[in-house]
């Protein structure tokens, strides 16, 4: 069976399915429908598969409670996971708290991030201001205001030394359009240098994390240099996060190649698996959508996930951190990338708590408040940090 056939059967199955539910279904339709089902088991299973999806879509009702009227909730507005897994018993009663009053969720503030549009809407001021507010020192207060303003602007751009450089501060997030139609989204505390030539498009990721939406151009490979490794693509979407010499690559579309930065760069080698075989896969690794690769001196470890799971790793592009059954220790490490005032975990019991939920990356305060209000955690705000302990 071919892909076209599979697609066509599914298309026809979808017609039958929706027609049957349409209110315009005649005896003669039923006869033709049954003939079609009996004609091939491939037809039947395609139909059953869509019918299952149709049936399951009604379960969205369970989530509609609390949404007024006929209103369609905007994407990401669902707040559905009990917040803590390790304390399931607790979370039964707290779930509502975690879901409805959560200031940190995607709820109202998940706009796409374009620095040029967002420059007035600094994500940090509230947060940073509060972090420093207890101090009376005027100088510090002034500094925090400066910081807040900076965080709200786009990446700083500097030129010189070949190519353009862009950087974001802690808590910053910005999109940089490139002349070839590609787009780079820079995460917190990141720094890249971009150089376009006739033969290649090169980005040095000096620090931090960036997502690349690469315009297709098979004559000019798109190369991201991240220390000892580089990532090569033609037209695709992926992110690279650098931590010294170890990098994490997440691919959501197309295919990319990870290889040693010392290799001579080959052109148009992203086409197929054949090339991998031809050159021996020892130092180059191909990544396909859904791949999350961790790369360091000792090698490459690839986790194969669904694209949607991979995308949860990229929720930072909307200024949001998404945790799916992660330890609080890991969640805190993430938050601390985005905030000047760090969260510190004071005892192991707290570190081991499991967290789920969506939060504004720069609003650690909201996250901490929520922890405190529902769970056996006490937060003490100190000058430059927030300490979490068991209660």
């Amino acid at each position, binding site marked *: 069976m071919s*892909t076209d056939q599979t697609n066509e059967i599914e298309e026809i199955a979808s017609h039958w399915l929706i027609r049957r539910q349409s209110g315009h279904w005649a005896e003669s339709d039923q006869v033709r429908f049954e003939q079609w089902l009996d004609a091939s088991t491939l037809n039947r299973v395609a139909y059953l598969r869509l019918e299952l999806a149709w049936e399951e879509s009604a379960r969205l009702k369970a989530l509609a409670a609390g949404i007024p009227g006929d209103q369609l909730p905007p994407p990401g507005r669902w707040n559905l996971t009990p917040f803590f897994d390790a304390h399931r018993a607790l979370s039964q009663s707290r779930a509502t708290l975690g879901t409805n009053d959560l200031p940190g969720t995607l709820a109202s503030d998940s706009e796409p991030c374009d620095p040029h549009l967002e420059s007035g809407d600094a994500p940090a001021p509230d947060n940073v201001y509060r972090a420093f507010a207890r101090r009376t020192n005027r100088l510090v207060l002034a500094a925090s205001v400066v910081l807040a303003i900076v965080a709200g602007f786009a990446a700083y751009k500097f030129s010189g030394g070949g190519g353009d450089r862009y950087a974001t501060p802690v808590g910053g997030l910005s999109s940089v359009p490139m002349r070839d139609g590609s787009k780079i989204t820079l995460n917190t505390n990141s720094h890249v240098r971009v150089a376009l030539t006739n033969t290649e498009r090169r980005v040095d990721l000096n620090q931090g994390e960036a997502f690349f939406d690469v315009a297709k151009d098979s004559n000019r490979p798109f190369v991201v240099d991240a220390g000892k490794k580089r990532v090569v693509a033609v037209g695709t979407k992926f992110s690279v996060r650098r931590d010294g010499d170890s990098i994490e690559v997440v691919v959501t579309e197309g295919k990319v190649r990870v290889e040693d930065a010392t290799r001579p760069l080959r052109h148009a080698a992203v086409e197929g698996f054949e090339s991998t075989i031809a050159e021996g*896969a020892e130092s180059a690794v191909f990544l396909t959508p859904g791949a999350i690769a961790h790369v360091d001196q000792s090698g490459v470890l690839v986790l*194969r996930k*669904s694209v949607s799971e991979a995308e949860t790793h990229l929720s930072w592009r909307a200024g949001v951190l998404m945790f799916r059954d992660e330890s609080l220790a890991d969640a805190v490490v993430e938050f601390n990338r985005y905030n000047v005032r760090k969260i510190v975990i004071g005892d192991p019991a707290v570190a081991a708590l499991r967290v789920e939920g969506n939060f504004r990356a720069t609003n650690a305060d909201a996250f901490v408040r929520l922890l405190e209000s529902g769970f056996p955690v006490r937060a003490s705000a100190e000058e430059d940090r927030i300490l979490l302990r068991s209660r």
Partner: protein
Amino acid sequence: MEEPLDSWFKREILSHEAILMSSISRVWPRQHEVADIRQEAYARVYEAACQVRPQAPKAFLLVTAQHLMADRIRRERIVSIRAGGDNEFLNVLVDELSPEQRVGAHQELARLARAFDRLSEKCREVIWLRRVKGMSQREVAERLGLTEKTIEKHLRTGTRRLAHYMRENALTPGVLPKRHEEESDEAGSP
């Protein structure tokens, strides 16, 4: 009386689509064929279950997919980078329990919501009114000022995409209705 085959098939076989997709796409070099193999595996399992329902449905499904792939490799002389010289690679499939297997009802719901969120705005609206608010197709058409044909088109596309996104484990571009189809206004019938 025995449960009808169709509902057994949905519960015991179709519910394993995510792990099926990941086990196929892990070994199969051509990602666009993953959906073909999946559908063929479903068909074979369905036919077998007409006779006798397998005791271990999931394992049976995965083994069926393995055999299909082995057949194809022989037939088409495909070389998979992970296939090596023999069928060794196939043996790893069944033992791998993906975490998806352990998801609870709650996470299923979360998965559904996330799938729903990925639909186009119009699809979301139509499916919301039709499936959640329980309106008839005609009522949805009146509410939105669209023809019933157009509503049907959105429902078809939405359902296909939901089926895909909910159990997604690999990109299978071949089975995805294209975006522009959602936007266009024509609607055919079988």
